[in-house]
């Protein structure tokens, strides 16, 4: 195995084309343990962190551009970002310990393609897009088109994510992310719920609900979104939303939770996340 630290997107692209079996990495918090556990060694480990664009965060022109290798610790510490996207910031901050936070990135969390990735439901709920380096240049795609199954992405050999783009959160909108884990901290989601609401007074104008860890990929709960629009998040509507969330799940049994438990709590935390997002949307994103 060889290590390479390109300083430009073009250089990284060439390394990947010239070296079949190479892998890009940012924090490698998933990749290195996977290699130690017996996955094939890459021919070249291509470190993306020396490419300035990959670790840059900028805000302007109505949106954010966030380098795919930016450590999640840098995002949660960015007050402007965390104030505008409190749910996405919280989801990013749940990825592991402080040690991991200084390495973990959205690009890695997305491309590792774990069904339980915490940042993914929150990114999808916020309509995030990615800019992808391809053989012929760059292309863009919505985040929800990247993961195709556990450990599987739609990226072609040699492609990698350069950056994420997010449109500014508009007035009257906010987001929230909640997850259930068996412990207080340092665990993998049994269910994660990323939601975003745009409120018109007391009523919901636009809703987006995305669940993680209850299907092979993060999934939208379209039926619940439709039920919410026009409602005031009353008990009857929330009960219908919870039912729709539970019904949309296609979870697995594992040591962290059974299928029945995951279905049940998916509804519960979806309701809780919606209440938080609505409060933030109406009263400011300080909670």
């Amino acid at each position, binding site marked *: *195995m*060889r*290590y390479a*630290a390109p300083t430009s997107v073009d250089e990284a692209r060439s390394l990947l084309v010239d070296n079949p079996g190479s892998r890009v990495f940012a*924090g*490698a*918090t998933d990749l*290195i*343990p996977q290699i*130690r556990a017996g996955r094939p*060694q890459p021919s070249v*480990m291509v*470190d993306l*962190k020396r490419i300035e664009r990959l670790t840059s965060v900028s805000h302007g022109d109505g949106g954010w551009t966030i380098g795919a290798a930016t*450590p999640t*610790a840098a995002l949660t510490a960015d007050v402007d970002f965390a104030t505008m996207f409190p749910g996405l910031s919280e989801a990013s901050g749940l990825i*592991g*310990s*402080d*040690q*991991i936070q*200084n*390495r973990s990135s959205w690009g890695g969390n997305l491309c590792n393609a774990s069904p339980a990735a915490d940042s993914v439901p929150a990114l999808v709920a916020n309509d995030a897009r990615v800019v992808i380096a391809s053989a012929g240049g760059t292309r863009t795609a919505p985040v929800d088109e990247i993961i195709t199954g556990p450990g599987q992405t739609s990226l072609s050999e040699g492609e990698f994510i350069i950056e994420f783009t997010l449109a500014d959160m508009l007035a009257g909108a906010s987001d929230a992310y909640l997850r259930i884990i068996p412990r207080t*901290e*340092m665990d993998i989601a049994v269910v994660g719920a990323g939601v975003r609401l745009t409120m018109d007074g007391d009523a919901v104008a636009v809703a987006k609900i995305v669940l993680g860890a209850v299907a092979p990929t993060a999934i939208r709960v379209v039926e619940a979104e439709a039920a919410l629009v026009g409602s005031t998040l009353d008990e009857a509507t929330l009960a219908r939303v919870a039912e729709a969330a539970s019904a949309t799940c296609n979870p697995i049994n594992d040591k962290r939770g059974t299928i029945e438990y995951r279905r049940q709590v998916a509804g519960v935390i979806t309701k809780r996340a919606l209440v938080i997002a609505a409060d933030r949307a109406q009263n400011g994103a300080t909670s």
Partner: protein
Amino acid sequence: MNRTHVNCTVNGDDVDFLAADGISLLDALRDELGLTGAKEGCGTGDCGACSVLIDGKLNCSCLVLAPEAEGAEIVTVEGIADGDRLHPLQQTFLEGAALQCGICTPGVLVAAKALLDANPDPTETEIRYALAGNLCRCTGYDKIIRSVQEAAVQLREATR
């Protein structure tokens, strides 16, 4: 196997070494530089026994490839004392019996230093969250938390 020449500073000293490209910073510190304070507990970034500071940021050195250290400033547990004078955290850990087997202790000390450097007056909850990436199977954590609190008091008094 390809080897990379790495230049960096470790505990304030300029060092250079040849690193096989697949090896971790932890292995380089222990085997190339003889700094055996950082320990390999899990090798997967879960236990924190290998914690070091890289450019002031807390990291699991088992998850860092050695060549990534090029140009970086690294601090290990060997670098937190002031010559013969122990760091207040080291002293309070001794006085508070905050260790038993000692495997986790170097990582805990480095993580606690990272916390107190950034937040000199943490709450107990903040200390527990900051050390959540450092597993200890001996102490039950309580003596560790008390010792960090005591060190924080001493450090605040020293800078007054």
